[in-house]
């Protein structure tokens, strides 16, 4: 079953590649705007070997890791606050309702004026993209914990902190993971766009900037090389990391949402 899935995926990729090559061979488009797979492959290899692509990738990943970490702490802090002090819950929920539907990109002009076009600005935009869906999921995760788990915890003499750590945390894990997944997807998109936009003003680098720069020099194979790396990272994180975590936790426990 698993091998079959991988095989199907592989055949899909091959078919797409073939289609691409067929269009290229048809000669309907100039190789400048529609490069062949071999040119793209070469550009990708070159960018990897001379270190440029890896450097920009690492920069992007470091920004996103930092932003995810900060968002995680903020989300945990705010959801704990809402749980412990009833009075803050309404305020926090209002904040979520206002901020959650607002795309990070929409904040960019404002952030640009307030913070300038630097790493800080990108961080703020990514944190905005991640924090609210994560917080929203944590909130609904906590409120969906069956009352019976808490009763059992109380009955066996657990303290409030023990109930929090031993019961609330694992019981809300499915929601936490799904919030993290949404957060990751949003952060990744926000990051690439922010790097492109800010790169045009004040280059701080990153994958988005890599692609943008290649476009400026009309290096389309380079642009595609950047896109391919973005796809690879997306697949790796969503399929390998998240799926693996889910398989070892919520799926194994029969707690999928």
């Amino acid at each position, binding site marked *: 079953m698993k091998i079959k899935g991988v095989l199907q995926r592989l055949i899909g990729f091959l078919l797409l590649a073939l289609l691409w090559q067929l269009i290229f061979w048809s000669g309907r488009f100039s190789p400048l705007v529609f490069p062949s797979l071999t040119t793209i492959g070469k550009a990708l290899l070159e960018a990897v070997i001379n270190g440029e692509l890896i450097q920009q990738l690492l920069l992007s990943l470091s920004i996103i890791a930092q932003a995810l970490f900060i968002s995680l702490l903020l989300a945990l802090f705010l959801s704990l606050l809402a749980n412990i002090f009833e009075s803050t819950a309404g305020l926090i929920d209002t904040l979520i309702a206002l901020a959650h539907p607002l795309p990070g990109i929409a904040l960019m002009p404002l952030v640009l004026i307030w913070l300038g076009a630097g790493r800080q600005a990108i961080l703020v935009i990514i944190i905005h993209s991640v924090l609210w869906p994560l917080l929203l999921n944590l909130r609904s995760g906590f409120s969906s914990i*069956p009352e*019976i*788990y808490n*009763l*059992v915890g*109380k*009955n*066996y*003499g*657990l303290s409030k902190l023990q109930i929090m750590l*031993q*019961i609330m945390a*694992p*019981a809300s*894990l499915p929601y936490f993971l799904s919030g993290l997944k949404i957060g990751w997807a949003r952060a990744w998109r926000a990051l690439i766009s922010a790097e492109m936009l800010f790169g045009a003003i004040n280059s701080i680098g990153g994958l988005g900037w890599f692609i943008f720069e290649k476009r400026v020099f009309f290096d389309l194979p380079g642009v595609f090389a950047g896109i391919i790396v973005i796809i690879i990272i997306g697949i790796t994180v969503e399929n390998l990391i998240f799926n693996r975590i889910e398989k070892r*936790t919520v799926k*194994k*426990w*029969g*707690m999928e949402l």
Partner: protein
Amino acid sequence: MGNGIIRNYLSLKNVYKYYYQNAEKKIVLEDINFSAAKAEFVAILGPSGCGKTTLLKIIAGFLEADRGAVYKDGKELRGSSPERIMIFQEFRQLFPWKTVISNILFALNAKRPAINPADRREIARYYLKEVGLSDVGEYYPHQLSGGMKQRVALARALAADPEILLMDEPFGSLDSQRRAKLQRLLVDIWQKTRKTILFVTHDIEEAILLADRIIVMDTDPGHIKEIINNQLKRPRKRTDLEFTALYKRLSRL
């Protein structure tokens, strides 16, 4: 049954419980008085809505009585305690993220942390065997049938070694075959461990089969109608004449 001291091991005195609906006071429990002897098996029998689950939750310490109190050995009980473990009807009382053995270990870790971990595991296995489930220790709850889950819940409760077991229709969601098996298992365990058991049910047969004493409740407001001693010889059979006689008497109430 004249021994007053033992008889008053666990007692409820003038227990009332209200709730408010649109500023209107509704009485859930009205003047509940009874006591249980140590190692006694008491059934609380009544239709739905008679407040029998609320009553059990008050004894467990999950809810507070609005008037009156619950006493154990003459001392008023406050709050919940692992000395009084509740077993629920819901199958999801087990923690889904823990294996069966870890669910039982949870009780041991909470109640008897002084025992070293290897011994705790050994004890957990012992209780799993006691409920007839030696082979499923490494399974997760979602892989078990409803009856198995209730057995694990029983094993977890026993592992905490409580003085009193509070059982809220634990077999209510099982089919009759499984239910009969679990009833026999519970009686065996009770005879072996001599725990005091308060068992809530709406099933007359179940109450007769299990309990030494049957507290019959009724609705509007929830109150005790009658307390009946059940001296039938064990093992009890549904087809015995005395059984059916008691059944008739109870169903007329």
